[in-house]
């Protein structure tokens, strides 16, 4: 009888101390992970929207710069400057203009993707073999047809490489989006920055998200750029 009570006390003691001792607590995570799904979803949206927007803008810039070479320098310089602004500073600058919320974070995150994606698309287009370009011209492809049927397909490996770096980087940067009031896993992290299990769970989800998105892009690349992986 006494022993049984003692054992119960010890067990309760232990379960209480995992959290109170600030240990890594699988049980706690198992009971609370559903509270992280909504921030995870927000985080994913932040990443997808900003990378997609960044891709569209960078692609347009790269195509223009591909035809007018002198633009490569200025565009690289400008996107480079955007890239070096500390994110917290950028959120703070944007707040008075765009207010708290999702889109403020999107503007900042998008501007960080531009340099990486732009440079990769430009490099990819530059690396198209000269003889393929010449053959395309000689066979009567118009400038637009050469771009879409020859140059862009051949630049795809570089473009995918850029997208993968940009996506992984953005998953990390989006953890700071809570500064702009956009939520995400970063906000969840900040709810209890001193609790290990919280940090492990929120941080782990960040890493998992980055890995998952990277894998999806890798598969997409394999499916699109089949010629690179044959033979």
């Amino acid at each position, binding site marked *: 009888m006494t022993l049984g009570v003692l054992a119960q006390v010890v067990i309760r003691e232990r379960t209480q101390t995992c959290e109170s001792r600030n240990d890594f607590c699988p049980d706690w995570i198992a009971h609370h992970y559903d509270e992280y799904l909504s921030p995870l979803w927000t985080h994913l949206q932040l990443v997808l929207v900003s990378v997609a927007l960044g891709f569209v803008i960078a692609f347009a810039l790269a195509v223009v710069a591909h035809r007018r070479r002198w633009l490569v320098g200025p565009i690289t310089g400008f996107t480079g400057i955007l890239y070096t602004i500390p994110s917290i500073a950028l959120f703070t600058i944007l707040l008075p203009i765009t207010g708290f919320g999702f889109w403020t974070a999107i503007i900042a995150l998008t501007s960080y993707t531009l340099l990486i994606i732009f440079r990769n698309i430009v490099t990819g287009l530059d690396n198209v073999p000269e003889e*393929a370009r010449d*053959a*395309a011209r000689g*066979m009567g492809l118009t400038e637009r047809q050469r771009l879409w049927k020859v140059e862009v*397909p*051949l630049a795809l490996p570089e473009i995918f490489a850029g997208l993968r770096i940009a996506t992984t980087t953005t998953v990390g940067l989006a953890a700071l989006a809570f500064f702009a009031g956009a939520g995400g896993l970063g906000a969840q992290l900040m709810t209890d920055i001193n609790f290990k299990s919280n940090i492990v769970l929120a941080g782990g989800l960040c890493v998992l998200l980055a890995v998952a998105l990277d894998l999806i892009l890798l598969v997409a690349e394999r499916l699109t750029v089949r010629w690179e992986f044959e033979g």
Partner: protein
Amino acid sequence: MTDSNTAQPEGPHPNRHAATLEFAHVAKTYPGTDEPAIHDLSFTVEAGEICVLVGPSGCGKTTAMRMVNRMIELSAGDILLDGESVQGRNTAALRRDIGYAIQQVGLFPHLDVAGNIATVPKLLGWSKDRIAARVTELLELVGLDPDEMRSRYPSQLSGGQRQRIGVARALAADPPLMLMDEPFGAIDPISRERLQNEFLRLQGEIRKTIVFVTHDIDEAIKLGDRIAVLQKGGVLAQYATPAELLMAPESDFVADFVGADRALKRLALQRVRDVDLWTTPWVRAGEPVAAARSRVSQTDLKLPLLVDDQDRPLRWLTDADLRGETVPSASGARPPHCVEADDILRDALSDLLQHGVQYAPVTDAGGRVTGILSLELITDFLGHQVPGHIIEAPSASDRVDSSP
């Protein structure tokens, strides 16, 4: 998938017309330079002919070729395709109508073989079935197995295969004119020889008008119906058939460029059977010696040749052999060295020299004697072919197998 029935109606229309091409006082001066790259270039390529542009590097041969499909715009003069100026035409449409093959081939690495060949037909809006049938047909035409090749990517092909796909791609829409810039330039000598022969066989079938750029005079002589020799500054030094060029170079430059061995090169243009061969009495074992002796007096070479009952040479007969009543058999003797009637003269000459003989029996495809070729005959042949009466250069299809 596509059997020959569906391929047939789309097939190469051997008569789809080959274009005539005329350079009329064409000049090209690049901005910022005084020296023209092409200087007053005029010549005409007849429909169905191979015109080879040849010359040292920097002579403007590639520039001249690229002005035809307006990859480079001309500065003065005009280029006429079937009498119509290329300058009045939409560049993309013009280029789709002209086959284009370059040394680096420029296959699209992201498209498989079928996709590469289909490039121009797709631009022209052909139906899927028609394109598939055409791809099969072209792969067969360039000597590749369609089922094996169709879905390979360029990175999975050998240099020679790429080159053939490049030619197939240039032929895809059956253009009346082909431009080829050193298409065999990057190929090893052995494959190159084979590709040249195949190219001539192919041309025998398709009869396109072809402008072919090379820096290799031997290639020019082998492939060209006519050769335009260009010198620095894009000046036309001579425009002539290979035989004319070898026999009567118009300037020291051409003579130099053609090479000190141009007499030998002429030997590559002719075959043994083109020569008026010597006769010699050929006799069979068992024949009366008297009959053999009487025939000796009527022939060029007074040396009887013993042949078997199918006229195949067995050995030369000596005086000692002709002392008996009848001609003895050839028992044990080594047959004389023979040359083949289909050999080109250059190889036959080399054969004679190598075996240290003055003459040799010539045999046809069946091994039968048709005459005697001698060093003297070859010397005469070269000596008598003066510019005045040039023997018509053998047609391209005739020279298909001219390589050893």
